[in-house]
Every structure is written in C-alpha cells, then in structure tokens.
C-alpha cells in the first residue's frame, strides 16, 4: 500500500510534460484548447472565478505544462490539479482584513469585548480594551453580526474585495438596559472561550446590587462571586482562592492601586459612576498580567461622551457624588469628571465645641480626557485622586494638641493607541501611582512645642507597551513589556521639638520591576483551543537581581457545542508585599519590597473545570477546581506588629515599632477547592448562585512553632445568591444573600503566671497572671450570613431626565455576625466566658439619583 502510494507520488503527470508554445494576442481559452489537443487532456474550471477570455501572448520553448499554466495564470491564488486525464484549474479565495472600532451610539464610548462574528465562516473576534478589532476573512459577500449584551445587535452585509476599515455604533437596548451583564466574554458563551477563572462586571450590575449605605461598590460586588471572599463583616478587602488582599493586583486604567479601602474597609475607593468595566481573573492568568499571586482586577473608567453633555448626581445617606461628561470638540475630544465626598464631618461640626473637635471624611475624584487624532491615533489621560482624612484638636487653657491621619492614592495614566496597520494595534502607557499614609501630631505644652510626623508610602513610575496582532481568525497574539520604578518609603519619621535637636529618619527602598510577555489565543479547531503564554519577569534592588520566567497555559476542549472542559496553569511572582498587622487592610499596613534578604513570593496554580451554556444561552454554569501552592510568602513574626488604636500616638507607635526587616518571617501556603457558578443572564429576573468549597493553610518557620495552621480566612463553605428583578421600566428589585463558614480567631484560652513577675525591672501596671494561647487560629468562629435587599424606583421626567429613588436594607434580619471575640468575666462571678461582638446590624438607607 505504501509502495503504491510512493509510486503514485513519483509518477509523472501531464503537468510535467514539456511543450513549446508561441502565440500572440490570443485568448487563454484558445491556448488551453491547443494544449488539450496536443497533450491529450481536458480542462475543468469555474466560470465565475476564472476568466478565460483574457488575451495574452506567450513564447515558451520546452517548458513543463505547469510552467506554461503559471505564465497564463501568474497569481499564486490559481492552483492546478490533475485527476486522471483531467486538468482542474481553480482559484483559491483571497483573504482580506476588516478592522475598526465599535462604540456606543450617542456617546461614542468605545466598547470592549464586543463580538464580531460571521456564522457561515465560523470565524469571529472580539474588540480589545480600546474597542479595536481585526478580522481576516476570505473575499466575497459576508454577513457580519456585531453583538454585545445590553446593546441591540447589528447585522452588516459586506462585499469584501479589499481590506476594509469599518467602525460600528451599537445602540443601547432599552429592553435589556440595566440588565445584569456579568460574563467573561460577551462574544459568545463560557463554553466558547479558552480563558477560565475570569469574570466581568459591568457598571449596571454594580448599580443594582445593593450594598451598605446605598453606595455603589465594585469590590463588594466582586465579593459575591465564588472564590472571592470578604474579610470581616463590613470589610472591602477580599481574599481570592486562599490568597491575601495584597496578592490582588488592582489596576485602574493601567495604574496599580495600592489601597482600595475607605473608612477602614467599609467602602472601596472605586466610585461606581466612573467605572466602565471591571474584569477579574482568579486563575489561568494571561501572560500580560503579573506581579501578584492571587488575582487581577482590571478596572477601566469611562472615556466621556463625545456627542453631548451628560451627567449624574447622587445623594445618599452619608455621601454625595456626581459625574459630568461631554465633548470638548465634538467627535474628537471628550472629558469625564466624577467626584464623591462623605459629609458626616460637616453634619457633626455644629455639635462640637471649639476646644474639642474631630472630623473624618473621604474624597474620590476621577477625571479623564480622550482625544482622537485620527483613525490610527488616540490619546487618553486619566487621573484618580482619593484620600481619607481624620483630624482632631484638643485644647486646655494655653495647651493644644492637633492630630491628623491621612491616607490615599493618586494615579495618573497617559495612554496612546496606535494602529500600525489593520492587523497590528499598540498601546503605550506612561503610568504614575502613589500611595501615602501620614500621621501628624503637634503639641504645645508648658511653653514647649513639638511636632511629630510619621509617614509611609510608595511612588511608582512606569512605562508599558502592549501590542495586539491579529494574523488570522484563529490567532490573537498579544505581546509587550512593562517596566516600573518603585520608590518605597516604608517609614519616614520627623520629630521637631523646641527644646531638643530635631530627629529625621527616612528609610528608602528603590527597585525596578520589569516584565516581557507574549501570549496567543489560538483556536486550533472548532473543538480545541489553547492559550499559551510566557512572561519573563525581572526585579532589581541594588545589586540583587531576580529573573523569573513564568509559564501560563490555558486550554479548552468542547465535548459538545455548548459544553467545554477547561484546564489552566499559571506561575506568578510577587516582588512587593504588604505587611498587615491586623489582616484587615488598615492604613497602618506597610508596603515593602523584595530585597536581597527578602525573596519574591511565588505561586503555582492548577485549575480544571467545566463550562456549559444552556437554555438558549440564557443560562451558564461553570464548575472549577483549583490547587494553589505559594512559596516565600511573608508575615509578621508573632507580635512584631500590632494594631493599637487607642489614640493617635498609639497608631504612631505602631508604625514606628514595625521592624519590616527583622520582624518578618517567610513561609508557604496551600489553597485548594471547588467553585460552582450558575448564572441567568437574560430576562426580567437575572442573577447568579455561587458556591465554594475550599481550604487554605499556612506554614511559617517562626509562627505557630513551625507547625502548619489554618489561615485566618480559611472558610470551608461560601455561598451567595444574587437576584435582580425588573418587572417593568419603573422598578428594580434586588437582593443578595451570603453564607460563609466562620473564620479562625486567636482566642487566649490559657492562664499562666505573668513573666513580668520574674523580671527584675518592674512594669508600671501588671497583673499576677497572663492570658495567652499557643496554637495560632485556635478557634473557628460562628458562621456568617446576611441578606441585603434593595428597591429602585425609576422615572423619566418631562425634561427627559431619569430620576431614581433607591432604598436599601443591609442585614435585613439583623444577623449578629461576629466581628471579634473576647474573653471576659461574667458580671456576677470571677469565672470567664467567651463573648462575641458584632456590628453592622440592620441598616436602612436611601439614595437619590438624577441622570441628565
């Protein structure tokens, strides 16, 4: 059989026969007829694609028939094939590229993740973060389907005879307006994309999911997804697949955000009005992201309306916010500015005396300018400013104490989009990010004055180049590099007194973090797709350099058209770390860097899952299991830092006392579990049901006497139900219910003699006994559950403005969820008991929103 094949292969065909032909100005048809007669074959061809009437002149001697035919049909699109005594001439189809942008009709806001699909060709793509797409398809007539949930789908017929630049406008679909849009990829279904462990949230979800005090909160909405867990009740910190909050890379318009909390974590810093989209990766990380172990949260803000001025104003129980957007030059330049401020301090001011005052507020401001130079070049400049401020002033006769605590972020990103050609798109970003925490105190006592300032913070200066290359519909290549200069100030202390010499001590760590990446979203065939990636990460502190290649890989195999098995592997390194004394994300937490003594944290995560779409794409279900191993993770040694918050001087002492070099211990962590998510995407009732079964453990050489222990936030079961019901255009009903197994607490359960009794320097105050525990996280707290309900009443006013009254009810059935435990005496005896404390019971609130 093989020999027969080889014989066939080596056999001479008519194409190899030599012939001479001299003709002048005759049609190709005449020449073919002549050749057929002389060589004894017949010719087959398609009349529609091959024109034989074209006249040519040929003068060829002793040339093979194949060479003669190539002279007649010089384009390589023409192919020749011999079947017995029949010669087939056919033309391969020419491929052309359509490229362009998809934006929202009426505002010209670019839309990312929009699907552009050609059913007949089974070819499609999605727009990138800047609304750009590129799709290479054969010439001819095609029907394009442009679709994005929440917008009216668009069908466009094109006759493709050359490369085309096409821009599409999608119109908001009022039927689905404000409908829940939470999908990893609007192009199609979960089962159709290779990426796993990712979720996307649009602002309408953030607006509809009720949270505390009526604030729209992106982070608290993320906390309702499986695999993402909140910390204590009320905390905006989040723990992804057994990681810690500092292992989450939070990127706002390409800039890293270091502190995401306001008011000790009750609110997140992201103002829901300014957000365009939120995308989260819990595993299977694309190679373009790096620098954190556990998750990536990518938040993009709006570009601003290029057609008309528009805005929003919102008043809630404790804060007000606004958003204003519009064109500076129509269709060319737009702006958006939004702000938020709490005003409890202003309300309290009349109730305080001049001698004793205190106040607290936080502010957020987001601004963005967007300019379109032409179809190829676009510029974006975005700035975020957010700050929490606490201040107090005490006076007694001529003596005075002033105190202040401030913390916050500033980020600024300048981005330039450039389209090199219809297949190559680039974005260049210049990035600045700052986080600073300061404590100040000035004292005037007995004619002497003193000033104490303590601060910690980080400044980042970065440059990032990203390229997207679309060679054909089966590949989307992304590659680029990022380099960031980190300037850490773990501690800066200034003490000035009128009768002593001043003390200034500032610690600085300067490092350079870089990454080079390439990834390919490759659709091998209709059933199988892979997403390999490689990131080369580099970190430099003085003469110490770390070079760490990171492999990323995802794959999907579609068993049936709407059912896929997925798997992924991701290796991540983290070079900067947050030291947390409480684990709650307090501003006293310090950001520090890897050094020659402190190695980068490392994680490897494997995930395996199923994704299925059903019910006419209304429902989707995913099931994922993961195993994550973390090495060289850091923590404080026992007691090396603590949160003592009795007064501002205690906070200052807490920071001054932190030894971020000798007070740190390194260890390893394990996290594994299974996540389930069932989601309804369309209809009057939308929402999701999530469940996570998980384990999270740690082991440090210098904690818990070197023994393995359960992490504080090791929650065995975590479930959430989110529902949004829109019976008509006038009302939105929403609710979410959350259940979590209890977290682990350190409970001092042992009484021993006080060691102070045996040390020769007497303490000022000391008891004969001391309470302590020897096992870390020795007590599993009570289960947590909470129901939050919300209702919104919408009305379009006569001036065509949309007015919304919103009411929310946090912790509806007043569940006493434990915040912390305390060992205390019973009131009527000397015996001890364990008591629980709780906060944030039933909290009703309202907000008023006007859209114009």
């Amino acid at each position, binding site marked *: 059989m093989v020999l027969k094949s080889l014989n066939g292969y080596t056999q001479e065909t008519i194409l190899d026969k030599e012939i001479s032909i001299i003709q002048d100005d005759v049609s190709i048809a005449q020449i073919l007829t002549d050749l057929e007669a002389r060589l004894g074959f017949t010719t087959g061809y398609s009349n529609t694609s091959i024109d034989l009437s074209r006249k040519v002149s040929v003068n060829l001697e002793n040339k093979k028939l194949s060479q003669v035919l190539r002279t007649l049909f010089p384009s390589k699109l023409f192919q020749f094939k011999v079947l017995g005594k029949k010669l087939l001439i056919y033309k391969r189809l020419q491929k052309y590229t359509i490229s362009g942008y998809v934006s929202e009709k009426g505002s010209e806001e670019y839309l990312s993740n929009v699907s552009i699909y050609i059913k007949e060709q089974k070819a499609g793509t999605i727009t990138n973060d800047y609304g750009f797409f590129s799709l290479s398809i054969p010439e001819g007539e095609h029907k394009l389907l442009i679709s994005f949930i929440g917008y009216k789908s668009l069908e466009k017929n094109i006759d493709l005879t050359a490369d085309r630049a096409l821009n599409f406008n999608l119109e908001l679909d009022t039927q689905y307006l404000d409908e829940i849009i939470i999908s990893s990829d609007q192009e199609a279904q979960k089962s159709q994309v290779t990426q796993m462990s990712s979720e996307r949230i649009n602002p309408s979800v953030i607006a509809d999911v009720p949270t505390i005090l009526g604030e729209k909160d992106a982070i608290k909405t993320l906390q309702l997804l499986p695999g993402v867990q909140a910390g204590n009740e009320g905390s905006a910190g989040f723990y992804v697949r057994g990681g810690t909050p500092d292992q989450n890379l939070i990127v706002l318009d390409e800039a890293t955000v270091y502190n995401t909390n306001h008011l000790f974590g009750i609110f997140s810093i992201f103002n829901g009005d300014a957000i365009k989209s939120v995308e989260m990766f819990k595993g299977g990380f694309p190679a373009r992201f790096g620098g954190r172990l556990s998750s990536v949260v990518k938040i993009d803000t709006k570009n601003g309306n290029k057609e008309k001025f528009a805005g929003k104003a919102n008043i809630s129980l404790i804060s007000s916010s606004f958003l204003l957007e519009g064109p500076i030059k129509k269709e060319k330049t737009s702006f958006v500015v939004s702000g938020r401020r709490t005003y409890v301090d202003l309300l309290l001011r009349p109730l305080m005396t001049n001698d004793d005052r205190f106040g607290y507020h936080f502010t957020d401001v987001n601004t963005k300018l967007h300019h379109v130079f032409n179809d190829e070049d676009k510029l974006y400049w975005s700035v975020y400013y957010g700050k929490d401020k606490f201040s107090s002033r005490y006076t007694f006769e001529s003596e005075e104490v002033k105190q202040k605590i401030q913390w916050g972020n500033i980020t600024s990103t300048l981005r330039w989009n450039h389209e090199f050609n219809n297949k190559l798109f680039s974005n260049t970003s210049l990035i600045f990010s700052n986080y600073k925490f300061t404590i100040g105190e000035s004292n005037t006592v007995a004619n002497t004055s003193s000033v104490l300032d303590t601060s910690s913070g980080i400044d980042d200066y970065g440059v990032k180049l990203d390229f997207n290359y679309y060679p054909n519909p089966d590949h989307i290549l992304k590659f680029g590099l990022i380099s960031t200069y980190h300037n850490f100030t773990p501690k800066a202390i200034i003490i000035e007194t009128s009768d002593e010499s001043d003390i200034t001590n500032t610690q600085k760590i300067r490092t350079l973090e870089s990454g080079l990446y390439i990834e390919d979203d490759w659709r091998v065939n209709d059933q199988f797709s892979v997403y390999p990636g490689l990131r080369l990460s580099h970190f430099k502190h003085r003469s110490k350099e770390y070079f760490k290649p990171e492999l990323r890989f995802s794959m999907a195999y579609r068993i049936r058209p709407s059912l896929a098995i997925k798997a992924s592997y991701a290796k991540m390194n983290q070079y900067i770390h947050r030291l947390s*004394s409480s684990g709650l994300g307090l501003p006293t937490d310090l950001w520090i860097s890897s050094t020659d003594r402190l190695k980068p944290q490392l994680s490897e995560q494997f995930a395996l899952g199923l994704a299925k779409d059903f019910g006419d794409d209304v429902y989707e279900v995913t099931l994922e299991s993961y195993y994550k191993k973390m090495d060289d993770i850091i923590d404080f*040694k*026992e007691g090396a830092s603590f*949160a003592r918050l009795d007064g501002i001087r205690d906070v200052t002492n807490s920071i001054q006392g932190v030894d971020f070099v000798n007070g740190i211990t390194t260890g390893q962590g394990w996290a594994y579990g299974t996540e389930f998510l069932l989601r309804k995407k369309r209809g009057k009732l939308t929402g999701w049901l999530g469940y996570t079964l998980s384990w999270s453990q740690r082991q440090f050489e210098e904690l818990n006497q070197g023994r393995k222990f359960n992490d504080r936030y090791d929650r065995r079961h975590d479930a959430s139900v989110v529902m949004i019901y829109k019976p008509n255009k006038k009302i939105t009903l929403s609710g979410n219910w959350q259940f979590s197994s209890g977290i682990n607490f350190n409970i001092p*359960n042992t009484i021993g003699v006080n060691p102070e009794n045996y040390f020769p320097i007497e303490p000022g105050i000391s008891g004969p006994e001391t309470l302590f525990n020897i096992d870390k996280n020795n007590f599993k707290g009570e289960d947590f559950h909470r129901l939050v309900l919300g209702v919104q009443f919408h009305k379009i006013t006569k001036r065509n403005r949309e007015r919304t009254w919103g009411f929310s009810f946090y912790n509806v059935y007043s569940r006493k969820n434990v915040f912390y435990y305390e060992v205390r005496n019973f009131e009527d005896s000397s015996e001890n008991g364990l008591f*629980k404390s709780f906060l944030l019971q039933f909290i009703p609130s309202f907000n008023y929103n006007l859209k114009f």
Partner: protein
Amino acid sequence: MKCYIICLLGLLMISCDFDFEDQVNEEPDGERLVLIYGFISPDEEMITVAVSRTISVFDTDVNFDEVSIISDATVIIQNENGEQIQLIYEPTNKQYEAPASSFAIESGQSYTLMVTANGKEFMSTCTIPEQKIEDISSDIGFRLDSNGSRTENLSVRFDDISGENNFYIVGAQYRSLSFPGEASTANFDIERFATDINGDGLSVTANGQVFGTEEGLEVTIKIAHVDELIYRTLRASFLNEDQESGNPFFQPIIPPNNILGEGGYGVFAGFRITERQEELTL
C-alpha cells in the same frame, strides 16, 4: 436638618457600634502546660527560674494561685564546661533560686537549663548578651497624652548599642525629694519595650508617667539589654493584658517558646542590665 442629623447619628451609632452578645458555648479549651521562665544575667545577684502550671481560662472552680505552683521540680543549669548547679525552690518568691556567687553567669557564654516537673523532662539553652547600655540621661516635664490630658513625664534617653539588632526593657522607680517614702514605679506603658528600629546606634527615648514632679524626684532608672525572646515574651504579656478588651483589631500575641519537651512552654534567656540613680527637678 437637626432632626436628620440626630437620626443619622443614632442610626450610625446603633449600626456601627460594637455590641456584645451572651457567651459562646463552644469555647476552645486551654492548654495544661508546664510554664518555665528563666531570665539570667551576670548583673544579678541571684539566678532564678520559675516553674508553674497553666490552666484553661474557662476552668471553673479552680483557684489559679493554688494550682499553678510547682514546688517539687528539679531545676539544673549547666555551663559550657559541663559544670552544673541545682536551683532550690524558694516559697516566698515562688521560684527556684541559687546565688550567683556560687555559679558564674558570664556575658557571651551559653547555658543549658534542665527541668524535671510533673514527671516530664524539659530542656533549653541560651546565650548571655555581650554588652550593656553605657549612658542613660533623663529629665522630667509634662506632655499631653492622645486624649489631650496633661501628664507628668519622665523622659529616658540612651544610645543604642551599634552593630546589631537590639532589644531593651525600660523601667524606673521614683520617690519625691520633699517627701521621701516608698518608691513608686513609673508607667512607661508600651514605651517600656524599646528597640533600635529607628536606626542602628541612634538615640532611643522612652517616656513614662510619674507623679509629684513639682517637688522634684529621685529616680532609679533600669535599662536591660535583653535577648529578643525576653523582649517578645514580656511585650506579648503586656499587650495581651493591655489590649484584651475593647480593641477589635487586636490579634492576641502568641508568646515565644524555647523550652523543649512535650507539654513544656516558656523562655530561658539572658540579659544585661544598667542602673542609674539621679535627682531631677523641673
């Protein structure tokens, strides 16, 4: 408007204030351990080691003072040369003691502690710090605390021993110059625990609350340069006691342990101490 403010404040107070519920029934039972503390120094006249029992904090009908004492343990300290001394239980101080004159404790030397108690054997080793603080300066004055209250203050300064990470315990006794009587103890609060964290070799300051500064004070200041284990043990004890009620963000600190042997816990470590006495007036 005023009504709104009152309602808002009331709501926030009710919702956000910490509240306490009845006791939790499934308490984590405490450990029954042999607790050993041995802090030794060349600068002390006695070598002392305390051996006691722990009980569960939730034990009922137990008198801790009665059950905690272990008076029949065998306590032996051995030096690098293998020479040993057995410490004898002293009921007044409730610890095992031996005069330093009979067994030299020397700086830079290592010692091994061997304890037999409750039928079990425990062991630990330590090395005595080489250096101690040279100069101490102090003065008295006033300061405002974080609540704006004016307090009388004893300020103590000394230079950090350069070239290594150091841990210090600060304390002082004082009595009035006008009405000398029994000495009182200055309250240094958390500043009792000092390190060179703000810079190697820099000046270290600690402030302690005193009373009666207007008449002048005779102060006896003691500063111990201690093994990190002593610092962490005493600091854990202080903070666990100080913060055990009312601070929701406080994580109880697990004290360190370098006692080997099942069921044993505690610290055996060394220190050097410097003492200075002076009279101070405003």
